[in-house]
């Protein structure tokens, strides 16, 4: 039996289905992220674990006990909110110690624990300060310390970094992960930021329209997406409309240029299918022997610092994006310059639910 189990969870708000048939089993100490676009049901699911929403159907079990209908204040679940939700009338120390005071712990024990937690989040000397005297990043650290102080069985984080600037976001997410590993606490993290989910999680639950699209490790979700939605939502993706030349041999063509993929295609010759190709699978030039080669012209070159992103027009309306690492000796091609690109036969994935007429490049959160 897993530590945190959600079985057949459904949540309806009147006629609106927010969450549908949600099943998850998280192990003790695991870091699970719910990833998906706005309105996909990830926060609603988290709120059901916290007890702020009661499921329409299904059960939630924590360490073997059924907590489906237990009030939030009796669940022993810590929560960190996007808006920090620090109590403005209390200083940092009182905020962190609130959960312990509620549990009527002796005051010397509370003082000791508050000190430990503030050291843990690198705010050792901030105890007497008030929330309004802290930066956003510091406030969220206090919120994290407060949620951990009473030693909850599960830590829930609802888009905790969304209100922070990019640099603080990266450093704080590394801290959250380090603290989670140090304490070994089971954690559920809600985000719409794929980079956050990929870098933090042991497993990711990708959600769309109230349903689970895929559950897997970051490696599995990124490299082996099981649905078109996951392929398009996680990472940057080229979607190519390809005509089937020989389904059994995996031979396809785009704009009259033939290439092959490593698997047979379940379609008939002449059909058009959608192919997904990650930019990092594509290289400039002919590549090693056996690579698929396509010719096109340079449509756009964007300098993004550590990488240079190029858009190569293969045929009318078909553009492939690829990334090249930046280096001082790199010679950037000119616009409209004829160019050759290549990719291995293992690179493309056949999609079923992404429309052929869809955008040539999809990026999560874009």
């Amino acid at each position, binding site marked *: 039996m897993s530590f945190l189990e959600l079985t057949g969870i459904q949540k309806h708000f009147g006629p609106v289905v927010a969450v549908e048939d949600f099943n998850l089993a998280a192990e003790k100490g695991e870091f699970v992220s719910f990833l998906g676009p706005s309105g996909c049901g990830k926060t609603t699911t988290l709120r059901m674990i*916290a007890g702020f929403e009661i499921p329409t159907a299904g059960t939630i079990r924590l360490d073997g006990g059924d907590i489906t209908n237990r009030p939030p204040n*009796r669940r022993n679940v810590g929560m960190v909110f996007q808006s920090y939700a620090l109590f403005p009338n209390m200083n940092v120390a009182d905020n962190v110690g609130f*959960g312990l005071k509620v549990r009527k712990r002796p005051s010397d024990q509370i003082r000791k624990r508050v000190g430990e937690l503030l050291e843990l989040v690198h705010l050792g000397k901030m105890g*007497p*300060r008030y929330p309004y005297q802290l930066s956003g990043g510091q406030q969220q650290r206090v919120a994290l310390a407060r*949620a951990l102080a009473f030693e909850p069985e599960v830590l829930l984080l609802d888009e905790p970094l969304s209100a922070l600037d990019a640099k603080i976001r990266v450093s704080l997410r590394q801290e959250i992960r380090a603290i989670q590993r140090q304490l070994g606490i089971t954690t559920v993290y809600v985000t719409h930021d794929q980079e956050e989910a990929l870098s933090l999680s042991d497993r990711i639950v990708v959600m769309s329209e109230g349903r689970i699209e895929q559950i897997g490790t970051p490696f599995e979700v990124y490299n082996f997406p099981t649905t078109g939605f996951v392929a398009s939502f996680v990472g940057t993706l080229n979607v190519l409309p390809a005509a089937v030349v020989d389904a059994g041999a995996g031979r396809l063509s785009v704009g009259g240029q033939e290439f092959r993929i490593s698997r047979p295609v379940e379609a008939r010759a002449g059909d058009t299918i959608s192919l997904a190709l990650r930019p990092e699978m594509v290289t400039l030039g002919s590549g090693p022997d056996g690579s698929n080669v396509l010719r096109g012209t340079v449509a756009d070159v964007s300098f993004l610092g550590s990488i240079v992103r190029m858009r190569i027009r293969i045929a009318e309306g078909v553009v492939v994006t690829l990334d090249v690492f930046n280096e001082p000796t790199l010679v950037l091609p000119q616009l409209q310059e004829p160019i050759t690109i290549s990719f291995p036969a293992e690179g493309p994935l056949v999609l079923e639910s992404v429309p052929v007429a869809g955008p040539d490049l999809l990026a999560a959160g874009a």
Partner: protein
Amino acid sequence: MTGHAATAPALAIGGRRQRRTGSLVAWVILLAGIVYFIVPLIATFAFSLRPTPMTLAYTNVLADPKFSGSLLYSFTVAIITIFASLAIIVPTAFWVRLKVPHLRTAVEFVTLMPFIIPAVILVFGIIRVYSAKPFVFTRTEFGSDALLVAAYVVLSFPYMYRAVDTGLASIDVRSLTEAAQSLGAGWPRIIVRVILPNLRTALLSGAFLTFAIVIGEYTIASFLARNNQFGVYLSLLGQNKAFEPAAVSLISFGLTWLAMIVIALIGRGGRDRIQITAAH
């Protein structure tokens, strides 16, 4: 370039002139307000000093046991009304914002009823319902006092609800409540430890308004035969004496302000205590 350089100082001068005119208008409005407020007070004060000796009206009033008695009675009624009103309005406004926000307009409308229904209608309704069985309240002093407080609580609704609701709007009620819940707090602790301390200013302004209304109220008190209510005492005094009502008005004005300052100091005292805790 030259054109820009020439127009920039002109614009700056224009801006300064506009600002000066704006501040002059503001001063005129402020002065008009002060005159409007102060002149009647000065006139009342001058009128109260007409008898010989000049302080006669004041010595008469202060020597009258009914004056201190009615003032004490009204202060007591006002304080009880404030607490009763808070006990009803705070949980209601909190619950409406948290659980049934779609009912906010309806609840707000209900709290505005005292503006729509005149006090005289309210008091006749109260007398009709509570002077016959099974709720006979008007036949005892305590019963009538209780009815007076109840009527004042209703009168305070529009002011108290708006003050509290505005205070709740200035804090993230939902997140604070959920944060407290996730930390293990029950409803009483959430309201007393988390919500109320963050509504201090709103509660004080609601309390001030309620206090001011209760001290000067006449209609309900007179129909409920609460002659020791300050408003009724003032009215009776005005029927028999010339200068004393002016003296009483000024004394009660000063005492009401004093009472409000005390309430404000009590409020600030709470805030200071929080800061002292923080310094440890």
